[in-house]
């Protein structure tokens, strides 16, 4: 037997032993890394740190938040998809990376939510459609009627090509049979600036960003794209109530790399549920504009699948190709 073969066997043996040890030990026995796919300071980061702290205090191990930013949160997601599925590397996943990006990019290195095991939904926020208070549109119908009568006259802003906001808009105008011009920006802030400056006619925002704009008299909300009305928006009707059955939301969830041992996933699910039920976490998240949304696993999984397929259809029918 050659030396290299011996070495390979020795290595294999060590690896096998290491694996046994890893499975036999108590989980978690060392710090867990939670990858936040944005730079520190954003809303996802804030939620990640809140959840991380809450879990950490329950397991007596630190939960280290690691910011891996870039390419609309897909780089962080790719990092976790490639990580060892041992329950020690988790992802604060966005809807963009999980259900939109897979249809748009072909070099992601992961296949959307299929490359992950869901731990649970953290929060979700429906989109609100806004127009300027200087405009004459009072209802969603007004806006869509104008758009139908004047093809390609309306401009709408989004934070970029292939974002959830972009696809939600495509869904909406396709359903209303309206032709409008998409004006992509580099991120939400730039889009909002152009909207406030009157360069575009309408855009969508989550309630935590929309409410200050509405209250300051700079924007008027025409519809919320959710199944039910939202408390923080008063008596704002849903799009469905106004005859356009479109739902769109932004969400984030904790995900583990595919193949993480079942018992560890169960442990993590329990911990996440407890964290979300924690009064302090709840209060802090609400203060930051999120509604904690603990959701049964089965329901979350079916939501993932529905959104994944819906966006696939939109991307194909609107002809959005990035590669």
């Amino acid at each position, binding site marked *: 037997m050659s030396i290299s073969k011996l070495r390979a066997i020795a290595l294999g043996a060590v690896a096998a032993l290491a694996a046994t040890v890893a499975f036999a030990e108590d989980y978690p026995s060392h710090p867990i890394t939670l990858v936040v796919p944005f*730079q*520190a*300071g*954003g*809303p996802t*980061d*804030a939620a990640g*740190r809140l959840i991380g702290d809450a879990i950490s205090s329950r397991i007596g191990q630190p939960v280290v*938040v*690691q*910011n*891996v*930013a*870039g*390419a*609309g949160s*897909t*780089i962080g997601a*790719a990092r976790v998809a490639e990580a060892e599925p041992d329950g020690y590397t988790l992802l604060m996943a966005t809807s963009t990376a999980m259900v939109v990006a897979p249809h*748009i*990019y072909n*070099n*992601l*290195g992961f296949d959307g939510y299929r490359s992950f095991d869901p731990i649970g939904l953290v929060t979700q926020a429906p989109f609100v459609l806004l127009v300027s208070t200087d405009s004459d549109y009072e209802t969603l119908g007004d806006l869509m009627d104008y758009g139908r009568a004047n093809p*390609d006259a309306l*401009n709408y802003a989004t934070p*970029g*090509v*292939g974002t959830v906001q972009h696809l939600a808009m495509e869904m909406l105008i396709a359903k209303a049979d309206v032709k409008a*011009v998409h*004006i*992509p*920006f*580099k991120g939400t*802030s*730039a889009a*909002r*600036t*152009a909207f*406030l*400056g009157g*360069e*575009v006619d309408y855009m969508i925002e989550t309630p*935590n*960003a929309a*409410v*200050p*704009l509405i*209250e*300051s008299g*700079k924007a008027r909300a025409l519809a919320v794209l959710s199944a039910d009305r939202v408390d923080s928006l008063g008596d704002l009707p849903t799009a469905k109530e106004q005859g356009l059955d479109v739902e769109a939301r932004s969400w984030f969830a904790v995900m583990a790399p595919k193949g993480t041992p079942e018992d560890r996933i169960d442990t993590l699910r329990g911990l996440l549920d407890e964290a979300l039920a924690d009064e302090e976490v709840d209060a*802090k998240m609400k*203060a*930051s*504009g999120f509604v904690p949304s603990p959701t049964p696993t089965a329901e979350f999984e079916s939501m993932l699948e529905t959104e994944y397929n819906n966006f696939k259809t939109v991307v194909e029918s609107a002809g*959005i*190709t*990035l*590669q």
Partner: protein
Amino acid sequence: MDLLQNFALGLSVALDPVNLLYCLIGVFAGMFVGVIPGIGPMTAISVLFPLTFYLPPTTAMIMLAGIWYGTTYGGSVASILLNIPGTASNAVTCLDGHPMAKSGRASVALLFTAVSSFVGGTLGTLLLMFFAPFIADVALSFGSAEYFALMLLGIVAASTISEGSASKGLAAVALGILIGCVGLDIYTGAPRLTFGRLELAEGVGLIPFAMGVFGVAEVIASIGNVREARLNSSTVGFRHMKPTRDEMRRSWKPMLRGSGIGAFFGTLPGTGPIVAAFMAYAIEKRVSKTPERFGKGAVEGLAAPEASNNSADMTAFIPTLALGIPGSPTMALMLGALIIHGITPGPSLMTDEPEVVWALVLSFWVGNLILLVMNIPLIGLWVRMLTIPYRWLFPTILAFICLGTYAVNTSSFDVWLVLVFGLIGYGMRQLGFPIAPMLLGFVLGPMMEEQFRRAMLLSRGDLMVFAERPISATVLAITAAILAWSVWSALKRSKPLADEQPE
């Protein structure tokens, strides 16, 4: 009066001992990180951000803001002493700061940057205090056509700021624009020059780019000539800090002009201190009666950009505070500190949270004062940095550059980028291409393209949009005038030479 009340409220909160302490910590940390090439405001703020979790929102903002403008103060130190900008907005400071240091006047140069920064910071703060809502409204009225016109003006006015061959300067701008094109096309999503790498989808980051072409390139270049031009570090102390009467006379106007230019560019979301510093330098050189002194240690070329970038640092808060819209990723980080504490930034932030906003604004002035007072005695210390043998200093700088770049996105790919750009920067230096215009092309080029195409989308392809909108038409007319003037003066200069030849 409301303003006076807010002023008093803000001052009382800003001078609260705890806030004062965090302001001190912020500016001190900022200045030190600024001095170290590679670690800029973005790195420092994202690393220290988790700390703000445990601070009240006002205190957190005061500290983060202190880091932000502190780095710009400190960044000039490395520019002057080592010819490596501490942060990208101090890149222009190298042009005249380093030659001053080489001629043994490092202390004077550092004193001027400290004073200019203070003047710029103070004027910026005053504008922020009195005119924030008004300025924010003006900034909002700038649409894509106006932005495009301004960017074009910037690139035309500033592309010839370096000494030497104009064609090499333009080539450097073009290369910068080309590197700026890397990434997904924001209108179609088509990948451009990404070589199939996901890491390049959002383009090349400013930090790896700037640290490579300035930092690494300078380190490689100095390996060959360690013995040459060792700075005279014995000239430390207050005696050597004394500027000449002539320098004092020549510097106050550039400081004021620089502050004004900085204030303007700082306000527009997305442009910020880097462009402000370039513009201030370019304008000084144009209004100067002796433009040939620039690049050889002219005090105007130091005072204007340093006043400008600090002024821009302050006015960058105008869109952030008055509209709740961050103009840059760093500003977005700072707003994050508010969001975490349940304060949602929006157009009514100034009326809803006067305490936070006014305390923050007044802390700027306190912080600027601390920086000025702290900087003067520190000048001696900074200059002594040059007595560290290069064999220790340069490897340390390289290590910091790698660390700082890695820390922003925890991406080792970015560290490789630093290496690539270091080699490009070194090659350009060896061939006599100026580096600063490349940074300008890199920053302005993609923005120009973005705004031009957006204006075209909105006007449905009608080029007249640039002429119909008054602001854009005016700015484009100025740009054309500058171009015409440059060509005319170039012809005038070459003519006597041609006349002399036959003799």
